[in-house]
């Protein structure tokens, strides 16, 4: 690595463009949002930056707090389900041979690379009233009715447009976010420790609980954060799969800009979401550092 002063022109030539781009198209827009979040509407299109905290205060009104509470709960449930579902998958990947590993990785990654909107749409087609699941159930119901059982009329399950649908959708979309960091963490483990535990008479579950989970804790924390943050800020999934009462933060932010036209309030909500994100990443960085120290002993 070279000190930048030894070759200023070359350093400048390589770093200038990315930094300038980042400043103009990321830092400046974010600064504008931040400025708007302490501003107020003074006309139909004019916004004065007055340094008010009214927009943030508004975020603590009961209706908004309910949406935020719902968002946190839905994102949290999603994250836990993802952890439970993904852990065995990551474990299987860790101990598979090279070729199987490649295939499993590809199978996990492919949906992740597929258009989010298409995946959500696919779920709608499966879960709607006349979708695959309900048609299948109706078929079964019809068959049972043929056998003379008193079945009554078929009522399709209300699978869509409720919180259940939102969680299913969020899990569907975010599962790979959990598998990959878990796999990365488990893959680094010293496998002889697990063998030792099994040799010494611990069962598989006990080994997982007392050896694998504590050792993989930084990776698990990474997976939790990496899944929770996008789930919390998800827009499309709750918008398309949820009902009118299942708003999440992102939809509330979108409304302030596209419908309610309260840009300062929208900007404040957006920054609250940003702060939550940054706090979680800071916690994660802290845990990683701690985990690194433990590993060094």
């Amino acid at each position, binding site marked *: *690595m070279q000190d930048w002063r030894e070759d200023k022109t070359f350093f400048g030539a390589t770093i200038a463009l990315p*930094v300038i781009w980042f400043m103009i*198209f990321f830092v400046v827009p974010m600064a504008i949002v931040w400025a708007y979040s302490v501003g107020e509407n003074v006309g139909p299109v004019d916004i004065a930056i007055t340094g008010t905290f009214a927009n943030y205060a508004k975020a603590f009104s009961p209706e908004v707090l309910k949406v935020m509470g719902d968002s946190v709960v839905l994102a949290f449930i999603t994250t836990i389900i993802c952890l439970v579902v993904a852990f065995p998958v990551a474990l299987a990947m860790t101990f598979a041979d090279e070729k199987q590993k490649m295939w499993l990785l590809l199978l996990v990654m492919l949906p992740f690379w597929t258009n*989010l909107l298409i995946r959500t749409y696919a779920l709608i*087609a499966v879960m709607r009233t006349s979708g695959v699941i309900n048609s299948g159930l109706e078929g079964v119901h019809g068959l049972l009715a043929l056998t003379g059982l008193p079945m009554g009329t078929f009522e399709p399950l209300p699978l869509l447009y409720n919180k259940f649908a939102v969680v299913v959708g969020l899990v569907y979309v975010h599962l790979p976010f959990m598998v990959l960091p878990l796999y990365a963490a488990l893959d680094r483990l010293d496998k002889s420790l697990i063998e030792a535990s099994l040799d010494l008479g611990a069962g598989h579950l006990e080994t997982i609980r007392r050896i694998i989970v504590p050792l993989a804790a930084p990776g698990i924390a990474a997976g939790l954060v990496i899944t929770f943050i*996008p789930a919390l800020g998800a827009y*499309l999934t709750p918008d*398309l799969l949820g009902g009118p009462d299942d708003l999440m933060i992102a939809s509330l932010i979108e409304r302030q800009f596209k419908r309610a036209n309260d840009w300062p309030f929208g900007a404040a909500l957006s920054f609250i979401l940003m702060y939550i994100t940054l706090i979680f990443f800071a916690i994660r960085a802290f845990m990683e550092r701690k985990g690194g120290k433990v590993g060094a002993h």
Partner: protein
Amino acid sequence: MAKKVARAPLDYLNMPAMKAWLAGVFIFLYTPLMILILFSFNDSKANIVWKGFTLKWYVKAFENTQLREALLNSLLIAGVCTIISIVLGALMAFAFWRFKFPFKGPLESGMSLPIVVPEICFGVAVLLFFAKIGFPNDLPYPFNLTQIILAHVTFAFPFVAIVVRARLESFNPELEAAALDLGASRYQAFRDVIVPHMKPGLIAGGLLAFTLSLDDFVITFFASGPGTITFPVKVYSMVRFSVTPEVNAASTIIILITVLATVLALRAQAATTKES
């Protein structure tokens, strides 16, 4: 006669319970997509019962001018975004790999923020930014796509930088020193020695940028002016109304493009790890 198959203690993949679990997970992940693809060939508007094979929904999707236009817009945006992202990402990766300079750590974390910031926050920022600077909304095609391209590049190029940086870790700096000794200028050495080594990283990163751009709905939704439509935005408006086989057909085409890009990217990345 039941024969117990010997299984190593850590061979989790061969546990029946584990196999069942994996099967369940992959059924959950793939069934909706399989059904979507299957019904794009179904000769029935209702989209529930299989009535026979047809390609008419593909014909219909291609005859839908708005849908076609949206698809072309998306591919154009993704293409331009990929090229700019590769250049910016490669420069960023190189500068951070090669030089020591003050505030390097904070700058590096700062420049990876576009990766972690929730899409909705960045989308809002882009909307306010273009409104504030009074970016013209009525540019002729294809310049009306500029805002979307600028926004996409901003979140895509840090991803490219990460992939390229990983690739650079396997570069032997003595090769560059040798090129300089043999009389190459800094720029010649960069162009003829370092860039060729970066190449698999550039391809993998570029394909990543391409899919990210093609995939993006939220930021496009906020960045696009009135009248500009991209594939996800068009599908969004179609999906809001109904589930039609036409959307299935269009989606299947996009899935095909994505699968191709993914396989190519994984190949490029596999080449990276093999060589190093």
